[in-house]
C-alpha cells in the first residue's frame, strides 16, 4: 500500500471527524492549562478544510495536504492554526506520488521541522513536539525495517500516544500554558493530544 491521493483525502476527512468527535476532550484539556479553545479552533479549521477539499481536483496526495495546511493557516488563528498549517504544507511539499512508507516518513519529518522552526519548541517543552517527535522516529524506524504503511502508521500512532501521555508530568515552557509554571504539571498537553489524534487517524485509515 502506498500513500496516494485517495488515502490523503481519507486521512484529512478522518482527522476532521476525529476532531469533531474529540472536540470536547481537547477543549477540556485546554481549559486546564490554556484558554479552552483548542477543540473548537481545530473543529472550525478542519470543517473549513472539508469545504476547501470539496471543490478541489488534487494533483496528488501532496496537493491535498498542502491545501489542508493553507486552509488551516487561513481559518484557525491562535497558535495551532499556523503550527498545524505549516506542518501540513511542509508534508504536502515533501510528498512524492505515490509515497511508500519511507517517503511518507520523510514527509512527516518535514512537517515536524516546520513546526519546530515556527514554534521554536524543544522536546520536553510540553507541546505538539512531544507527540510528533516520537511518532516520526517510530515511523522512520518501522519504514527502515521494511514495515508496511499500516504497520509504520500504527507504530507512529502508539509512539504519539505515549508522547502525549508523557507530557502530563512536564512543566510547560512554551505557549500560554507556560504562564502557569509549576501549575501546568499534572495535565496532558492539548496540542500533543491533538497530534496523537492525527497520527491515530492515519493508522486507522490505512488499516481499515
Amino acid at each position, binding site marked *: 500500500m502506498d500513500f496516494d491521493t485517495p488515502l490523503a483525502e481519507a486521512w484529512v476527512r478522518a482527522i476532521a471527524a476525529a476532531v469533531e468527535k474529540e472536540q470536547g476532550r481537547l477543549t477540556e484539556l485546554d481549559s486546564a492549562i490554556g484558554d*479552552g479553545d483548542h477543540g473548537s479552533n481545530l473543529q472550525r479549521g478542519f470543517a473549513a478544510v472539508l469545504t476547501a477539499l470539496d471543490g478541489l481536483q488534487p494533483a496528488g496526495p501532496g496537493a491535498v495536504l498542502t491545501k489542508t495546511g493553507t486552509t488551516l493557516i487561513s481559518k484557525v488563528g491562535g497558535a495551532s492554526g499556523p503550527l498545524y498549517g505549516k506542518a501540513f504544507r511542509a508534508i504536502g511539499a515533501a510528498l512524492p506520488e505515490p509515497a511508500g512508507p519511507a517517503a511518507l516518513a520523510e514527509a512527516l519529518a518535514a512537517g515536524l521541522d516546520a513546526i519546530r522552526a515556527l514554534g521554536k519548541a524543544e522536546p520536553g517543552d510540553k507541546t505538539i513536539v512531544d507527540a510528533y517527535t516520537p511518532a516520526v522516529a517510530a515511523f522512520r524506524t518501522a519504514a527502515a525495517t521494511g514495515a508496511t504503511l499500516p504497520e509504520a502508521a500504527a507504530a507512529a500512532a502508539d509512539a504519539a500516544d505515549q508522547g502525549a501521555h508523557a507530557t502530563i508530568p512536564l512543566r510547560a515552557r512554551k505557549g500560554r500554558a507556560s504562564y502557569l509554571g509549576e501549575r501546568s504539571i499534572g495535565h496532558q498537553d492539548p496540542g500533543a493530544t491533538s497530534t496523537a489524534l492525527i497520527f491515530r487517524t492515519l493508522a486507522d485509515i490505512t488499516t481499515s
Partner: protein
Amino acid sequence: MKKLINTPESVLEDALAGVAAAHPELTVDIPNRVITRAVRPAAPKVALISGGGSGHEPLHGGFVGPGMLDAACPGEIFTSPVPDQMLAAAKAADSGAGVVFIVKNYTGDVMNFELAAELAAEEGVEVRTVLVNDDVAVEDSTWTAGRRGTGATVLVEKTAGALAERGAPLDEVAALGERVNAASRSFAIALTAATVPAAGKPGFDLPEDEIEVGVGIHGEPGRRREKLRPARELAAEVVETILADHHLNPGDEVIALLNGLGGTPLLELYIVYGEVAARLAAHGITVARSLVGNYVTSLDMTGFSLTLTKADTQLLELWDAPVDTPALKRA
C-alpha cells in the same frame, strides 16, 4: 452569566456591524475582519497595523484613525487573527512607504503575524514588526513564552502613529515603537475573571474575597493569589512591582496609563489612580501625562493594570500630537 449578545457564535460579526454603524470614519470589512480608515492619508506614509484576539476593546479597532493606526485585524475572542486578515490589511493600508505590524507577545499572535509578514514580503510590501512585551508579572522568560504584551501597546500605537503621520521612514517608526516598548512596564490585578461568551462561565475560579495579582489580559495566572485589600495598598503594590523592574530614578518623568480591565467602574479606577500618583510622587517620579480609563480590556474582567512609560521630550511631544480615533481623540 447574562450577556448582551444575539448568539455566542455571532459575537464578533455583530460587534463589527455595530462599529461600522457607529463610525462612518472607519471602513469595516466584516467578512474579512479588517478595520481601516475610511479616508486614506493624502500623502504616502508608513502604515501601522495591529491586531489580536477580540475582547480587549477598544484595542485595536478603536485606535484606527489619523494619528494612530491605519488598520486593525480583530480575531475571534481571545484568539489571534489569521495571516489573511493581516495581509489584507497590509495591502489595503500600504501606500508604498511600508508597514509596521504592532504585535503583542503571545505565541499565536507572533506566529500569525510572522506568516503574514512573509506573505506580505512576497507581495512586495515591506514590513517591520514591533513586539510589545511589557508585563512584568512574567518573571522567568526562559521558562515561559516571555513577557506578555499589554498596556504599553496603547503607548506604542499612539507615539509611533504620530511619528508615521509626519512622514517618518519605516525603520524610524519601527525603532520608535521598540524604544517605547523598552521604556514601558505594566502590571495588573484582577478582582474577577472574564467570561468568554461561548464558554458562558468565568475563565478561572477566584473566591469572592481573593484577587489574582499579576493577571494577564486573557486571565492568565499571575504571580499569586491573595485576599482583597484596600485600593491604596493594591496601588502601592503595583507601583512597587513595576519600579522593582523599571530603572526609574527620582526626577524622572513618566506617562502613566491606569487601565480598566473592562468591568470596573471609572470611579474605582480614579481611586486607584489617585493612590498611584501619590505613591509615584513619594518616589520623586513625576507623572508628565496620564490616561485613566478602559483601553486594553479583558471582556468583563474587573480590576486594573498600570503601565509606566519613561518619558522624554520626543515621547511627550508624540503623545501630545493630534489623534482622531473612536477611543482616543486629541485636537
